[in-house]
Protein backbone atom coordinates (compact mmCIF):
# COMPACT_ATOMS: atom_id res chain seq x y z
CA UNK A 1 0.00 0.00 0.00
CA UNK A 2 1.27 3.48 -0.89
CA UNK A 3 0.08 6.63 0.88
CA UNK A 4 -1.24 9.35 -1.44
CA UNK A 5 0.68 12.19 0.27
CA UNK A 6 -0.45 14.70 -2.38
CA UNK A 7 -4.11 14.34 -1.33
CA UNK A 8 -3.76 13.33 2.35
CA UNK A 9 -5.02 16.24 4.51
CA UNK A 10 -4.74 15.15 8.17
CA UNK A 11 -5.25 18.59 9.76
CA UNK A 12 -8.40 19.64 7.88
CA UNK A 13 -9.71 16.06 8.19
CA UNK A 14 -9.34 16.15 11.98
CA UNK A 15 -10.77 19.69 12.26
CA UNK A 16 -13.70 18.90 9.94
CA UNK A 17 -14.27 15.67 11.82
CA UNK A 18 -14.34 17.58 15.11
CA UNK A 19 -17.08 19.84 13.67
CA UNK A 20 -19.10 16.76 12.65
CA UNK A 21 -18.63 15.39 16.18
CA UNK A 22 -19.72 18.73 17.64
CA UNK A 23 -22.89 18.64 15.53
CA UNK A 24 -23.61 15.08 16.73
CA UNK A 25 -22.97 16.14 20.35
CA UNK A 26 -25.34 19.12 20.05
CA UNK A 27 -28.10 17.03 18.46
CA UNK A 28 -28.07 14.27 21.08
CA UNK A 29 -27.85 16.64 24.07
CA UNK A 30 -29.97 19.43 22.59
CA UNK A 31 -32.74 17.60 20.76
CA UNK A 32 -32.18 14.12 22.13
CA UNK A 33 -31.71 12.55 18.71
CA UNK A 34 -28.87 10.56 17.09
CA UNK A 35 -27.35 12.38 14.11
CA UNK A 36 -27.73 9.74 11.43
CA UNK A 37 -28.15 11.33 8.00
CA UNK A 38 -29.98 8.32 6.52
CA UNK A 39 -32.46 8.30 9.41
CA UNK A 40 -32.91 12.07 9.15
CA UNK A 41 -33.57 12.01 5.38
CA UNK A 42 -35.66 8.83 5.61
CA UNK A 43 -37.64 10.27 8.51
CA UNK A 44 -38.13 13.57 6.69
CA UNK A 45 -39.78 11.64 3.84
CA UNK A 46 -42.43 10.49 6.34
CA UNK A 47 -44.00 13.94 6.48
CA UNK A 48 -46.70 12.90 8.96
CA UNK A 49 -43.98 12.10 11.55
CA UNK A 50 -43.71 14.53 14.50
CA UNK A 51 -39.93 14.65 13.96
CA UNK A 52 -40.21 15.61 10.28
CA UNK A 53 -40.03 19.44 10.77
CA UNK A 54 -36.66 19.50 12.59
CA UNK A 55 -35.31 16.89 10.19
CA UNK A 56 -36.18 19.10 7.19
CA UNK A 57 -34.57 22.03 8.99
CA UNK A 58 -31.32 20.07 9.53
CA UNK A 59 -31.37 19.13 5.82
CA UNK A 60 -31.71 22.83 4.90
CA UNK A 61 -28.69 23.54 7.13
CA UNK A 62 -26.67 20.89 5.28
CA UNK A 63 -27.58 22.37 1.89
CA UNK A 64 -26.74 25.93 3.02
CA UNK A 65 -23.41 24.98 4.61
CA UNK A 66 -21.24 25.17 1.44
CA UNK A 67 -22.42 28.76 0.91
CA UNK A 68 -20.94 29.69 4.31
CA UNK A 69 -17.87 27.48 3.80
CA UNK A 70 -17.19 29.32 0.52
CA UNK A 71 -16.93 32.63 2.40
CA UNK A 72 -14.57 31.18 5.03
CA UNK A 73 -12.18 29.19 2.80
CA UNK A 74 -11.93 28.01 -0.79
CA UNK A 75 -14.33 25.18 -1.62
CA UNK A 76 -13.86 23.31 -4.89
CA UNK A 77 -16.80 21.87 -6.85
CA UNK A 78 -17.41 18.21 -5.99
CA UNK A 79 -16.38 15.82 -8.78
CA UNK A 80 -18.61 12.80 -9.44
CA UNK A 81 -16.49 10.29 -11.33
CA UNK A 82 -19.31 7.73 -11.61
CA UNK A 83 -21.58 7.89 -14.70
CA UNK A 84 -25.22 8.73 -14.04
CA UNK A 85 -26.46 5.16 -14.31
CA UNK A 86 -23.95 4.10 -11.62
CA UNK A 87 -25.13 7.04 -9.49
CA UNK A 88 -28.75 5.85 -9.77
CA UNK A 89 -27.70 2.36 -8.66
CA UNK A 90 -25.50 3.87 -5.94
CA UNK A 91 -28.33 6.05 -4.60
CA UNK A 92 -30.85 3.19 -4.59
CA UNK A 93 -28.44 0.87 -2.75
CA UNK A 94 -27.36 3.57 -0.27
CA UNK A 95 -30.95 4.58 0.52
CA UNK A 96 -32.32 1.05 0.80
CA UNK A 97 -29.28 -0.43 2.55
CA UNK A 98 -28.92 2.34 5.14
CA UNK A 99 -32.58 2.06 6.12
CA UNK A 100 -32.52 -1.74 6.30
CA UNK A 101 -29.24 -1.64 8.26
CA UNK A 102 -30.55 1.17 10.56
CA UNK A 103 -27.74 3.58 9.72
CA UNK A 104 -25.08 5.03 7.46
CA UNK A 105 -21.62 6.56 7.83
CA UNK A 106 -22.82 9.22 10.29
CA UNK A 107 -25.36 7.11 12.22
CA UNK A 108 -23.19 4.00 12.67
CA UNK A 109 -19.73 5.27 11.71
CA UNK A 110 -19.68 8.39 13.89
CA UNK A 111 -22.52 8.32 16.45
CA UNK A 112 -22.65 4.53 16.84
CA UNK A 113 -18.91 4.19 17.37
CA UNK A 114 -18.98 7.17 19.77
CA UNK A 115 -21.74 5.34 21.70
CA UNK A 116 -19.51 2.24 21.69
CA UNK A 117 -22.44 0.30 20.21
CA UNK A 118 -21.52 -3.28 19.16
CA UNK A 119 -24.16 -3.14 16.39
CA UNK A 120 -22.52 -0.03 14.95
CA UNK A 121 -19.01 -1.53 15.14
CA UNK A 122 -20.35 -4.52 13.16
CA UNK A 123 -22.24 -2.31 10.68
CA UNK A 124 -19.23 -0.02 10.11
CA UNK A 125 -16.90 -2.98 9.59
CA UNK A 126 -19.34 -4.54 7.11
CA UNK A 127 -20.04 -1.43 5.03
CA UNK A 128 -16.35 -0.49 4.94
CA UNK A 129 -15.51 -4.00 3.74
CA UNK A 130 -18.13 -4.07 0.95
CA UNK A 131 -17.19 -0.50 -0.08
CA UNK A 132 -13.47 -1.41 -0.28
CA UNK A 133 -14.40 -4.48 -2.31
CA UNK A 134 -16.74 -2.52 -4.63
CA UNK A 135 -14.10 0.14 -5.37
CA UNK A 136 -11.51 -2.57 -5.97
CA UNK A 137 -13.78 -4.35 -8.48
CA UNK A 138 -14.84 -1.13 -10.22
CA UNK A 139 -11.32 0.30 -10.50
CA UNK A 140 -9.02 -2.65 -10.79
CA UNK A 141 -11.06 -5.61 -12.09
CA UNK A 142 -13.66 -4.09 -14.43
CA UNK A 143 -12.04 -0.68 -15.01
Amino acid at each position, binding site marked *: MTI*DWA*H*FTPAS*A*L*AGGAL*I*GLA*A*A*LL*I*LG*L*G*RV*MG*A*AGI*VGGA*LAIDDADAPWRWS*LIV*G*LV*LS*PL*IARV*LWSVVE*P*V*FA*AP*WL*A*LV*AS*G*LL*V*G*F*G*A*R*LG*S*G*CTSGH*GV*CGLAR*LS*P*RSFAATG*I*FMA*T*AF*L*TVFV*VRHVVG
Partner: protein
Amino acid sequence: MKRIVFALVVGLIFGLGLCLSGMYEPTKVTGFLDLAGPWDPSLAFVMGGAIVVALPAFWLARRRSVAWVGGAIELPAKRALDAPLVVGSAIFGVGWGLGGVCPAPGVVDLAFLSPSAAIFVVSMAAGMLVYRAAAGRPLPGLRLLAQDA
Protein backbone atom coordinates in the same frame (compact mmCIF):
# COMPACT_ATOMS: atom_id res chain seq x y z
CA MET B 1 -39.72 26.71 16.69
CA LYS B 2 -36.74 26.22 19.04
CA ARG B 3 -36.27 22.70 17.67
CA ILE B 4 -36.35 23.98 14.08
CA VAL B 5 -33.69 26.66 14.70
CA PHE B 6 -31.54 24.26 16.74
CA ALA B 7 -31.65 21.63 13.99
CA LEU B 8 -30.75 24.25 11.37
CA VAL B 9 -27.61 25.20 13.33
CA VAL B 10 -26.71 21.50 13.77
CA GLY B 11 -27.13 20.97 10.01
CA LEU B 12 -24.89 23.97 9.27
CA ILE B 13 -22.12 22.72 11.61
CA PHE B 14 -22.43 19.16 10.24
CA GLY B 15 -22.20 20.50 6.67
CA LEU B 16 -19.27 22.81 7.47
CA GLY B 17 -17.45 19.79 8.90
CA LEU B 18 -18.10 17.83 5.69
CA CYS B 19 -16.84 20.77 3.60
CA LEU B 20 -13.71 21.41 5.71
CA SER B 21 -12.77 17.73 5.87
CA GLY B 22 -13.31 17.32 2.11
CA MET B 23 -15.82 14.52 2.66
CA TYR B 24 -18.42 16.28 0.45
CA GLU B 25 -16.08 15.44 -2.43
CA PRO B 26 -16.75 11.92 -3.87
CA THR B 27 -13.20 11.58 -5.26
CA LYS B 28 -11.78 12.28 -1.77
CA VAL B 29 -13.94 9.46 -0.38
CA THR B 30 -13.00 7.00 -3.14
CA GLY B 31 -9.34 7.98 -2.51
CA PHE B 32 -9.85 6.37 0.91
CA LEU B 33 -11.92 3.42 -0.33
CA ASP B 34 -9.35 2.45 -2.99
CA LEU B 35 -6.84 0.47 -0.95
CA ALA B 36 -5.05 -0.79 -4.07
CA GLY B 37 -4.38 2.67 -5.52
CA PRO B 38 -2.45 5.57 -3.94
CA TRP B 39 -4.28 5.62 -0.58
CA ASP B 40 -5.62 8.79 1.09
CA PRO B 41 -6.22 8.01 4.82
CA SER B 42 -8.09 11.33 5.43
CA LEU B 43 -11.51 9.70 5.98
CA ALA B 44 -10.17 7.74 8.96
CA PHE B 45 -8.96 11.03 10.50
CA VAL B 46 -12.40 12.58 9.97
CA MET B 47 -14.06 9.68 11.78
CA GLY B 48 -11.45 9.82 14.53
CA GLY B 49 -11.90 13.57 15.06
CA ALA B 50 -15.68 13.23 15.09
CA ILE B 51 -15.71 10.28 17.51
CA VAL B 52 -13.34 11.96 19.99
CA VAL B 53 -15.66 14.98 20.23
CA ALA B 54 -18.95 13.03 20.20
CA LEU B 55 -17.91 10.34 22.70
CA PRO B 56 -18.21 12.43 25.90
CA ALA B 57 -21.54 13.83 24.66
CA PHE B 58 -23.01 10.34 24.25
CA TRP B 59 -21.54 9.32 27.61
CA LEU B 60 -23.37 12.27 29.14
CA ALA B 61 -26.54 11.59 27.12
CA ARG B 62 -26.76 8.08 28.62
CA ARG B 63 -26.90 9.65 32.08
CA ARG B 64 -29.55 12.22 31.24
CA SER B 65 -33.15 11.73 30.18
CA VAL B 66 -34.26 15.19 29.05
CA ALA B 67 -32.79 17.18 26.11
CA TRP B 68 -31.87 20.89 26.46
CA VAL B 69 -34.65 21.99 24.14
CA GLY B 70 -37.10 19.65 25.92
CA GLY B 71 -38.36 16.17 25.16
CA ALA B 72 -36.76 12.82 25.87
CA ILE B 73 -33.23 11.82 24.82
CA GLU B 74 -33.72 8.80 22.55
CA LEU B 75 -30.82 6.38 22.19
CA PRO B 76 -31.12 3.14 20.17
CA ALA B 77 -31.90 0.25 22.53
CA LYS B 78 -31.34 -2.67 20.16
CA ARG B 79 -28.33 -4.86 20.95
CA ALA B 80 -28.64 -7.93 18.72
CA LEU B 81 -26.53 -8.35 15.58
CA ASP B 82 -29.39 -9.40 13.32
CA ALA B 83 -29.85 -10.13 9.61
CA PRO B 84 -31.24 -6.68 8.65
CA LEU B 85 -28.17 -4.97 10.18
CA VAL B 86 -25.71 -7.23 8.35
CA VAL B 87 -27.48 -7.35 4.97
CA GLY B 88 -28.44 -3.66 5.01
CA SER B 89 -24.92 -2.52 5.89
CA ALA B 90 -23.43 -4.75 3.17
CA ILE B 91 -25.82 -3.28 0.57
CA PHE B 92 -25.09 0.25 1.81
CA GLY B 93 -21.33 -0.29 1.42
CA VAL B 94 -21.71 -1.45 -2.19
CA GLY B 95 -23.71 1.70 -3.02
CA TRP B 96 -21.21 3.91 -1.17
CA GLY B 97 -18.31 2.37 -3.09
CA LEU B 98 -20.08 2.73 -6.46
CA GLY B 99 -20.60 6.48 -6.17
CA GLY B 100 -18.28 7.63 -3.38
CA VAL B 101 -21.30 9.37 -1.85
CA CYS B 102 -23.22 8.66 1.37
CA PRO B 103 -26.39 10.41 2.56
CA ALA B 104 -25.11 13.63 4.21
CA PRO B 105 -22.49 14.53 1.56
CA GLY B 106 -25.08 13.83 -1.15
CA VAL B 107 -27.42 16.40 0.43
CA VAL B 108 -24.56 18.93 0.91
CA ASP B 109 -23.57 18.56 -2.77
CA LEU B 110 -27.06 19.74 -3.83
CA ALA B 111 -25.76 23.26 -2.98
CA PHE B 112 -23.44 23.11 -6.00
CA LEU B 113 -26.46 22.61 -8.28
CA SER B 114 -24.72 19.53 -9.61
CA PRO B 115 -26.99 17.26 -11.69
CA SER B 116 -25.01 14.26 -10.41
CA ALA B 117 -25.82 15.16 -6.79
CA ALA B 118 -29.50 15.53 -7.69
CA ILE B 119 -29.53 12.13 -9.44
CA PHE B 120 -27.90 10.54 -6.39
CA VAL B 121 -30.22 12.16 -3.81
CA VAL B 122 -33.42 11.40 -5.78
CA SER B 123 -32.30 7.76 -6.22
CA MET B 124 -31.40 7.55 -2.53
CA ALA B 125 -34.84 8.87 -1.54
CA ALA B 126 -36.39 6.31 -3.91
CA GLY B 127 -34.35 3.54 -2.25
CA MET B 128 -35.60 4.66 1.17
CA LEU B 129 -39.21 4.71 -0.03
CA VAL B 130 -38.80 1.23 -1.56
CA TYR B 131 -37.54 0.04 1.83
CA ARG B 132 -40.52 1.59 3.61
CA ALA B 133 -43.02 0.09 1.18
CA ALA B 134 -41.33 -3.32 1.36
CA ALA B 135 -41.09 -3.30 5.16
CA GLY B 136 -44.86 -2.81 5.49
CA ARG B 137 -45.88 -5.36 2.88
CA PRO B 138 -46.03 -9.14 2.72
CA LEU B 139 -43.09 -9.57 0.34
CA PRO B 140 -41.72 -12.91 1.60
CA GLY B 141 -37.91 -12.41 1.77
CA LEU B 142 -37.88 -8.69 2.43
CA ARG B 143 -40.46 -8.82 5.16
CA LEU B 144 -38.44 -11.45 6.95
CA LEU B 145 -35.36 -9.23 6.73
CA ALA B 146 -37.08 -6.01 7.63
CA GLN B 147 -39.38 -7.18 10.41
CA ASP B 148 -37.32 -5.74 13.24
CA ALA B 149 -35.37 -3.02 11.42
